[in-house]
């Protein structure tokens, strides 16, 4: 009988530092929620977090909670609870899992962090529809439940070139959030504090970019699967000094790996790019599947989405507006394709995996002919796998496995020629 190859996934030492960062972050939020010492704002993952920090809020991001619901595989049982009250199984399974968890009064935070029962209570909910409309509906549910204000930025979608008009509109909307935030926080807005937060955020973004760029080394010292957990601090901690300190430690370790020519995999034969969201409940299974085939999934659009190089403390509102509109997810297919072409080249990619996530069309870029066009232009082959970020009912492990193995066979044949 043929044996399955046993694979050991190498851990990065500094993952502990980032783990500690996340723990501190949740305890601080929990404390604020319980004592009322600080106000808590809920924010979408690519929302205007810097403004919230500048006004003294602790910022909580429900999407990371949802990702935890996914990776702890709690989501699949909770999604139906939200379905039952009218949130369709076809919409964002971050939303449905999170609302399901709220209805059932359960949270992965309670399992991981002793003493924390669940997410911190919000004082205000702040969204940006730059990523999707679902976030607005998601937050609207909580605004009602907690009886707190909900404000947000209504962004553009399918943006070809980011123009002054886009930037102005978004910047204006951001400024208009200030009075509500002042009222909730009881703090007067101070532009210098915003500059500080934007500067820290930019630094975080630069460090995170440097971390991800190390994957250009051959062999790559880091995988996409590492990145999905290491990026926590870039999502929830941008605009804080602590996040930046944690990334410096990580960066050092990655650079040491590069110097030693030590790869994230024992044997890197193929270099792959991941387009789309992770399948949170299969993170380690997928990491092992690819590693067993000596295929290093080393870069992704997803992890790179928390890079905001336009942020500029000199011009905080405008630069935030630009940074949060320039993002991949906000753009039309032509700029998206250019982005991926650049990534293919920079990371020396042999193949692309598109994850068609059933409940997130916004992060599934294989639905309008992009894979076919890019393959034609670059000659880099692709594979689409059908799945979902959180809803494991939408996944066929066997089919994924066969598809991935067959794709690697295809790459092998190409290399052999």
């Amino acid at each position: 009988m043929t044996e399955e190859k046993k694979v050991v996934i190498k851990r990065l030492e500094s993952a502990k530092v980032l783990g500690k960062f996340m723990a501190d972050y949740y305890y601080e939020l929990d404390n604020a929620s319980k004592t009322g010492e600080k106000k808590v704002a809920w924010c979408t993952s690519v929302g205007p977090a810097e403004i919230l920090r500048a006004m003294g809020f602790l910022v909580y991001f429900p999407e990371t909670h949802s990702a935890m619901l996914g990776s702890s595989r709690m989501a699949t049982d909770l999604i139906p609870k939200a379905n039952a009250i009218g949130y369709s199984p076809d919409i964002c399974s971050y939303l449905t899992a999170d609302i399901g968890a709220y209805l059932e009064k359960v949270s992965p935070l309670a399992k991981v962090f002793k003493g924390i029962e669940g997410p911190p209570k919000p004082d205000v909910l702040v969204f940006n529809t730059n990523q999707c409309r679902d976030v607005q509906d998601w937050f609207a549910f909580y605004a009602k439940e907690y009886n707190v204000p909900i404000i947000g930025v209504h962004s553009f979608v399918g943006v070809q070139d980011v123009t002054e008009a886009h930037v102005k509109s978004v910047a204006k909307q951001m400024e208009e959030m200030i009075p509500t935030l002042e009222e909730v926080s009881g703090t007067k807005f101070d532009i210098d504090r915003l500059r500080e937060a934007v500067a820290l955020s930019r630094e975080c973004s630069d460090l995170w970019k440097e971390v991800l760029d190390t994957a250009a080394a051959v062999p790559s010292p880091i995988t996409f699967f590492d990145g999905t957990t290491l990026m926590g601090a870039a999502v929830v901690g941008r605009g804080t000094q602590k996040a930046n300190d944690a990334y410096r430690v990580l960066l050092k370790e990655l650079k040491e790996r590069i110097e030693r020519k030590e790869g994230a995999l024992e044997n890197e034969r193929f270099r792959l790019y991941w387009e789309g969201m992770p399948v949170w409940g299969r993170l380690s299974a997928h990491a092992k599947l690819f590693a067993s085939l000596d295929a290093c999934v080393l870069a992704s659009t997803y992890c790179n989405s928390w890079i905001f190089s336009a942020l500029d403390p000199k011009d905080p509102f405008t630069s935030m507006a630009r940074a949060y509109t320039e993002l991949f997810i906000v753009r039309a297919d032509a700029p998206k394709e250019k982005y991926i072409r650049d990534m293919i080249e920079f990371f020396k990619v042999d193949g692309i995996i598109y994850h068609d996530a059933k409940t997130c069309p916004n992060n599934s870029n294989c639905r309008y002919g992009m894979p076919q066009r890019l393959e034609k232009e670059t000659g880099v082959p692709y594979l689409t796998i059908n799945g979902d970020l959180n809803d494991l009912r939408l996944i066929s492990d066997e089919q994924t496995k066969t598809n991935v193995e067959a794709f690697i066979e295809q790459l092998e044949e190409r290399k052999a020629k």
Partner: protein
Amino acid sequence: MNQDKLFVGTDVGASRTKVAVIDTARKLVGYAVRKSGTNFTATADACLKEALEMAGAGKERIAGAISTGYGRKNVSYAQQTRTEIGCHAKGCFLYFPMAITIIDIGGQDNKIIKLDENGQRTSFKMNRKCAAGTGAFLEEMSPRLDIPLEDMDGLARKSKDMVKLGSFCTVFSATEVLENIRNGKKVEDIVKGLFYSVIRRIIEMDSFTENVVMTGGVVEHNRYLVTMMEELIGRKILVPEHPQLTGAIGAALYALEADAVYRDA
């Protein structure tokens, strides 16, 4: 070259297990097909025994064995596994050495595989989560219409006024079928409608290149599907002699290629 050597390919599909035995000249000398059942290992063993009997050979002549398919890890005598995508491609290219698009209709899934003129795979696709368009769809419908699976092909050929079924979904299609029965439609017209919907689901999966090959158990037993597909795409379709065996034959070919003695000869 050792003429006595034999190579075995075993394709353990979700529905059927197929074993092919080839000699060093790549000739199919024995084969067997059985229901995969619940004990894949035992089924594969039984198939091997049967195929070797057909070849008039003993186990000692086996110089290599590779397994493929859904249950590929459960074959006790295989030294290696390959995916069914690779094996179907290899099996088809043996019979049609040219640039081809392969449509394989299996019990649980469909595959579309494209090869260039060197037999190198340029792309492949498997159907998505639903059974629509696969053998499972026809299996689901046969009891509803109260007609045995093996009668479907003959019935579909008789149809003069095909019923069109609109839905993607197997369950919705079943409802449509019931509605048509209620409306007094002829069973052969409904069956042809089912065949048509299988073909539609496949056409939706990918574009086809000039030369199209059809394989798989569903094609083996329902050749009328090929005729219908030819009508729909407006050109002749190639079908190997044993369309159900291409995966197993491909696996056997991989085993032959992996054989060092053969390679050095």
